[in-house]
């Protein structure tokens, strides 16, 4: 799981063009949006698309559920490992 978390951190950095941030700077348990990394709704869409392309996981339109999956890198890793096709 730690390897997947590391992989997702890299995906987040590359997909969102985060400048001057390395995977080690991201706390896997910290919030990704608003607080923590300070990402916004466009980032969420961009990240959803990248996860879909990379792992074949599709987000549902249920916003409560998505909120949970996108809470942190750790939550994303849990979601991906449960649903990945690739």
């Amino acid at each position, binding site marked *: 799981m730690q390897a997947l978390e590391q992989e997702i951190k890299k995906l987040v950095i590359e997909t*969102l063009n985060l*400048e001057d941030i390395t995977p080690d700077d991201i706390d896997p348990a910290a919030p990704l949006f608003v607080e923590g990394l300070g990402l916004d709704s*466009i980032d969420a*869409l961009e990240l959803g*698309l990248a996860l879909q392309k990379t792992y074949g996981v599709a987000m549902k339109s249920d916003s409560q559920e998505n909120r949970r999956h996108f809470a942190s890198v750790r939550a994303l890793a849990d979601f991906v490992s449960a649903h990945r096709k690739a």
Partner: protein
Amino acid sequence: MMRRRVDRLGRIALQAAYTCQRDAPPCPGVFASRYGEMGRSVELLETLARAEPLSPTSFSLSVHNAMGALFSIARGDTTAYSAVAAGAETVEAAFVEACGLLADGAPEVQLVVYDEPLPRPFDSFTERRMVPHAWACRVRAAQAGSGVTLTCHGVDGDAPRAEPGDLEDDLAVLRFLVGGAAAYDHAVGSRLWRWRRDV
């Protein structure tokens, strides 16, 4: 956190905007670009043609007013701004827009002009060599006899087609504005734009 989303032309444009703005009070802005971020549009269209999903970030920035919007959002400035594109007359249209805002009561208007070379497959439409560039200035009503006048004239009959100058249209205007020349005439189709320095 917003800079990471902005490509080359946007960065150049916003650099000019921020440099011109400095600590001055917010004022209405006019963002003028003949072609805007055409590279982004081409990329989006190519993605569509391959039936692949579009990048939401790129899509959100593919509108002509994207740079004005970012400048406004990043600074939390709710002053009005507009985006202008008017072919070879883009700068003249931008100054007309600025004059409209001044006439409407704005004490000052910030103008940002930016363009970059057209990407393939549109690059064959350019008349001359283009370079990525941006410039900005603040426009205010002149004291009597110390400003610049811009007028537009209809040209009767077949006006001799103007030779494309050595500079891009907006840069030719910039050269007039910062140089010492008394006049600059810019013929576009059946219109003649006359820039004059008041003396």
